[in-house]
């Protein structure tokens, strides 16, 4: 019998028992819908995290001063003054894997413009490479230059949050703001970066030359920096870059082979992989839930198919009498089971997708769903039909025509 004919036959037979068909599908519909909705919401959340990590810049490696230890007592991370801007230059020179490197000094204080004031989350003293390392473009003006850094120029680049709050929507370019009563000219405005993975507003930022920050805002004569950020040429070279950087810094800081380093290294890749691990745990959980719901749904289908086979015994006998072979009967019932589960899968996908979209608009949660997942869901529901439909179909195919025709 041709597959097209079988398909029509199966469709008609399912259409003859609408309520039963709907009930048989229900288990798989609910299972698939739940999984699709959960995957969509989970994937959406994970995308946000990955985007935020990516927004830090490409292949970023961060170096912080290590913990100062005196007499076995640790003062905690960042309590040494081990990193300097000279380290930055040395690393750029000696580690070829570094594409760009920037040093940062952090401080927090008020910024004032014409009677309005604002307390930015961070004021970063940095250098001209910052935009390059963090892959952060400007919407207005330019970055301060290397010359500005050397000259400790009183210039600054501000984030959009600052511009919005101090300038109330007007352009800030060329205006003068005051930080610790020192006038800074705004030379550039950063493009919007959004919320970071920890929930802080990345646009609530002021960048000034680190020399200016050190001398004027912190009043310090030292050349130490709070953080060095390096952008590595490619993801493959991150490992070797870590090794080279460690070697160079330990040599420069004259650390004995057995002593611990006086700095810490963290890569964005590590953060990303932590986030990925979390997501994979989620995925495993989802897969388990999906399997259970498909199993339950599949048993539901098998149940209904068995009922259908025994109820239609005479029909099967008749079909056999008029020339159907066992395999024609097998094909017909298998097709019914696959249609049932496949259609249930599609309805489930649609429902799950609808639920996810509704969540997205009602709760303002990000959701994202890939065609892949939908394809897998559809394929799995069909597979469930084949698997759980096979036994009932086999029973139908093995019927003896005489016995079947005599069935009451």
């Amino acid at each position: 019998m041709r597959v097209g004919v079988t398909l029509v036959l199966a469709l008609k037979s399912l259409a003859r028992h609408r309520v039963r068909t709907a009930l048989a599908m229900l288990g798989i519909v609910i299972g698939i819908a739940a999984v699709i909705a959960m995957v969509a919401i989970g994937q959406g959340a994970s995308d946000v995290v990955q985007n935020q990590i990516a927004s830090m810049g490409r292949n970023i490696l961060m170096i912080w001063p290590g913990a100062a230890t005196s007499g076995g007592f640790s003062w905690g991370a960042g309590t040494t003054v081990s990193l300097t801007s000279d380290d930055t230059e040395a690393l750029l020179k000696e580690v070829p894997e570094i594409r760009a490197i920037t040093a940062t000094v952090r401080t927090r204080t008020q910024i004032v413009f014409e009677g309005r004031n604002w307390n930015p989350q961070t004021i970063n003293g940095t250098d001209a490479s910052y935009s390059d390392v963090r892959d952060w473009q400007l919407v207005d003006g330019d970055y301060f230059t290397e010359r500005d850094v050397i000259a400790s120029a009183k210039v600054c680049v501000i984030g959009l949050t600052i511009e919005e709050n101090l300038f109330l929507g007007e352009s800030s370019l060329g205006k003068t703001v005051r930080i610790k009563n020192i006038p800074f000219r705004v030379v550039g405005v950063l493009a919007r970066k959004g919320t970071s993975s920890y929930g802080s507003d990345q646009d609530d930022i002021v960048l000034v030359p680190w020399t200016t920050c050190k001398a004027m805002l912190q009043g310090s004569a030292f050349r130490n920096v709070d953080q060095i950020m390096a952008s590595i040429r490619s993801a493959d070279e991150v490992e070797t870059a870590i090794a080279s950087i460690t070697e160079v810094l330990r040599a420069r800081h004259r650390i004995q082979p057995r002593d611990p380093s006086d700095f810490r290294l963290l890569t964005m890749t590590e953060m990303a992989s932590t986030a990925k691990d979390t997501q994979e745990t989620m995925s495993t959980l989802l897969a388990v839930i999906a399997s259970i719901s498909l199993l339950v749904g599949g048993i539901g289908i098998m149940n209904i198919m068995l009922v259908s086979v025994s109820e239609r015994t005479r029909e099967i006998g008749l079909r056999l009498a008029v020339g159907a072979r066992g395999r024609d009967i097998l094909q017909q019932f298998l097709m019914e089971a696959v249609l049932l589960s496949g259609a249930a899968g599609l309805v489930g996908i649609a429902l799950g997708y609808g639920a996810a979209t509704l969540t997205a608009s009602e709760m303002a949660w990000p959701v994202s769903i890939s065609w892949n997942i939908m394809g897998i869901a559809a394929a799995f529901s069909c597979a469930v039909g084949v698997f759980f439909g096979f036994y009932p179909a086999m029973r139908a195919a093995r019927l003896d025509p005489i016995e079947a025709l005599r069935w009451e």
Partner: protein
Amino acid sequence: MPGAVSRPGAEPAHAGATDAAAGREAVIALDDVRKTYRMGEVDVMPLRGVSVTVKRGELVAIQGASGSGKTTLLNIIGCLDRPTSGRYVLNGRDVSRLSKDQLAAVRHQTFGFVFQQFNLLGRTSALENVELPLLYGDPPPTKERHDRARAMLERVGLGDRIDHHPGQLSGGQQQRVAIARALVTKPSVLLADEPTGNLDSKAGAEILELFMQLNRDGLTIVLVTHDPSVAARAPRQIVVRDGLIVEEAGT
């Protein structure tokens, strides 16, 4: 009417038929066919050595009481069952040892079946019921299936009922749909098992008249009945008792 009695192990005895259908080829030729079942602890032997020949164009009634073996005989003739021993030659081909799938193909090509219970699919139009056998074997295109089913329904006098479901038809009409279904594959033999058993006498008479008419048009028909008055309508009758042909009558 001249009669002949067949005994177990005897030569195929169909003297009356031979006269009537002389020169015509045999469609069905059973030679000493036996059938044994095992039901629990006991062996049941519904057929104890039956030899019978049906020629093209005959209308044969197999008559017998319940449990006489007449239905088993019809099942074997219809290739729904295989003989335990003996030979069955159908249209010149030995079909006594064919596989299940081969038998299905033989049934599809050779026979049309009519049952006492009609065995129509419920909630399915008369047209679709008649089309059913055309779905198997090597199915013709949809259009041709429709046309052939429609033509067959017209032939049995139901041209105005093709969209009716069995539930909307009388018993006689349902049996006509079943006959149309049996004929749609252009079988060489029509097999009917108690075709009037579920009908009132008027509808039953009409169905029998339809059989006679189909037979006059050249169709070979074998029908099974317990009712001597139904059997009497057939030109040739075979009486079965205890798994043996005990009487053969016909012209």
